[in-house]
């Protein structure tokens, strides 16, 4: 007698849909339930506040949420793509907050709000996303800004590189304050808030193909408290700008051209950490062209330069501030470097991608 196997019909017989595991799937971008779950359980967990959590199509700002009379609005937007997402000292989350906060702050404005849109690649690990969001939360707290609108899209695997974040910053400054790139005047002093090139080297290091180890950390930091305090103490600051991509040299060439002036830097005064200089020597890179994410160039009248320098050095992120040069003449826009040897050379913008020299 053969034994017959009967199917067990007790309990569920349809295959249960798999709950999404620890990674982003296309359903997270569907706009349906999975999207809502991701927003509520992941995004709002870190970035939530009353305005964002209201869940409307856009944020409604009124009353005490808007700029008081006598202030002007300042807006900036910035897309953040970086490989790898995490690198010594920072990550794409902190970068996406600091980058936009700093852009708003450079016009002498107090950044108040950010919007953020996230492009997620299918397969991206949700716990990595949470690490990025936690980092954004901390940077927002440090900068004292709120994320008031956000969006998420998911691309198929291979159509994006894990995570792209675009942030827009909104802030306000006293009406009439004009701290812009076209305000540099002959006779002004040029200050920098600290050592240059650390972010660029930290990211290269994190890519893991340098063949040596260094302890260089990214300098990514929100500078708005420093710039706000500086503008309050020194109302005649002419220019502030953060030397991000393209580095100090490219940024100062931009300012020289906008202001139609010649700026001269004193090479021995430019602060560069020994570890960054050593890495640059090995790799054939020029630290004046490396990206920074937590430094500000300040240009102001010479008579206030020493006081402003002491003031910067008393601020968080300004401890290693130095006076690095001056605006020497009107011109079509030129940047000169006075070397330690007393010779002079022209510094140009970075032409394209920074390439290591062969030997």
């Amino acid at each position, binding site marked *: 007698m053969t034994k017959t196997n009967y199917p067990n019909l007790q309990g569920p017989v349809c295959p249960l849909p798999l709950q999404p595991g620890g990674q982003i799937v296309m359903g997270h971008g569907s706009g349906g339930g999975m999207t809502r779950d991701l927003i509520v359980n992941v995004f709002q967990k870190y970035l939530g506040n009353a305005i964002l959590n209201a869940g409307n199509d856009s944020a409604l700002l009124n009353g005490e949420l808007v700029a008081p009379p006598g202030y002007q609005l300042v807006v900036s937007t910035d897309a953040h793509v970086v490989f790898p997402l995490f690198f010594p000292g920072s990550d794409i989350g902190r970068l996406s907050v600091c980058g936009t906060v700093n852009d708003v702050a450079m016009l002498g404005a107090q950044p108040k709000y950010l919007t953020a849109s996230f492009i997620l690649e299918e397969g991206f690990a949700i716990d990595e996303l949470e690490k990025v969001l936690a980092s954004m939360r901390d940077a927002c707290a440090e900068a004292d800004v709120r994320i008031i609108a956000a969006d998420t899209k998911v691309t198929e695997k291979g159509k994006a590189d894990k995570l792209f974040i675009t942030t827009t910053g909104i802030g306000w400054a006293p009406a009439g304050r004009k701290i812009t790139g076209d305000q540099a005047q002959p006779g002004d002093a040029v200050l920098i808030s600290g050592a240059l090139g650390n972010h660029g080297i930290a990211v290269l290091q994190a890519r893991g193909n340098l063949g040596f180890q260094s302890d260089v950390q990214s300098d990514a930091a929100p500078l708005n408290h420093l710039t706000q305090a500086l503008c309050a103490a020194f109302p005649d600051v002419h220019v502030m700008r953060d030397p991000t991509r393209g580095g100090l040299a490219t940024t100062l060439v931009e300012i020289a051209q906008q202001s139609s002036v010649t700026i001269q830097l004193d090479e021995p005064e430019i602060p560069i950490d020994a570890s960054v200089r050593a890495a640059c020597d090995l790799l054939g890179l020029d630290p004046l062209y490396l990206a920074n994410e937590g430094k500000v160039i300040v240009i102001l009248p010479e008579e206030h330069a020493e006081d402003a320098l002491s003031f910067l050095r008393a601020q968080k992120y300004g401890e290693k501030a130095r006076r690095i040069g001056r605006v020497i003449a009107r011109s079509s826009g030129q940047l000169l470097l006075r070397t330690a*040897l007393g010779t002079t*050379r*022209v510094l*140009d913008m970075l032409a394209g*991608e920074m390439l*290591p*020299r062969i*030997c």
Partner: protein
Amino acid sequence: MSLPSSEVFRSAALTRQLAGEIRQVVTRPWNIMEICGGQTHAILQYGLDQLLPPEITLIHGPGCPVCVTALESIENALQIARQPDVIFCSFGDMLRVPGARANLFSARAEGADVRVVYSPLDAVKLARETPQKQVVFFAIGFETTVPSIAASILHAERNKISNFSILPANVLVPPAMHAILKSPDNRVNAFLAAGHVCAVMGYWEYEPIAAQYRTPIVVTGFEPVDLLRGILMSVRQLESGRSEVENAYERAVTREGNPDAQAMITQVFEPVDRQWRGIGLISLSGLGLRPRFKSFDALERFALAHQAVSESPLCIAGQVLRGNATPHDCPAFGRECTPASPLGAPMVSSEGACAAYYRYQRVKT
């Protein structure tokens, strides 16, 4: 000395002292050629030419390896890089060098897998990790880069990494010096020999050249103090009528060089005729793989279409590379030709004379 060596060799006081000695020694005009693009870069980066007396003219030599890489080699590189299942590896500044119509950057933008490596051994590692791909390394550079390329071939052979190959385009310094000195319009009175090449090869092979052409050759490093010492020693020889090979880069170079590296080069490579971009064919001035290693030659591995190629008619790179013109003599310099859209190779690498002039001396100071 208690300072780190890089600070000693960049010392402003020492550099100025050496410049003062050169001014004291010099009595008439001399043309000194620095062979190596790294030296050209350092001279302009530090503005060393501004410290020299007017009698001394520095002529920038053909030693920028990306500048002299033949157009045909770049076209071959582009053809290989565009093939499916190829990872094409190169030193970084080769990517922007223009071929006839494209460069490796534009090939990458069109979907070719082009990667920057710091060492050919990284390319071998990549080949081992991606056995389903053909990994090709663009073997450019002077004797300085050759030992690591030879080592990568030997490593690949030993470990049976058969999906690795190189596109051979290395060049040698001594044949180029012969070519310059033999040229009827030669203006070079003395050479600063390239310190890093000599670290590998020593300087014994320059002794017959100095004697044959009665031309001083001084092995020179890359920091300001090194360069001014090299120039001072050259001027002293010229002023006293000597033509010897001297070493101003003692901390890195011996007369014999690095025998292990030389043995590795000889084991893997043999001299071949080679085209130099802007200069022409120089016999036995390049390195090709010996028959035993031909299986690692990308030119053998990939069937390449022959293409007729020609340079931009505006570009005077050949004159610049031979030392017969400065970038300021070129009508396209800074106009049609900039580092962002170079017409000729010397505008590409920061070691190239045109790019160095554009960066540091576009406006004469």
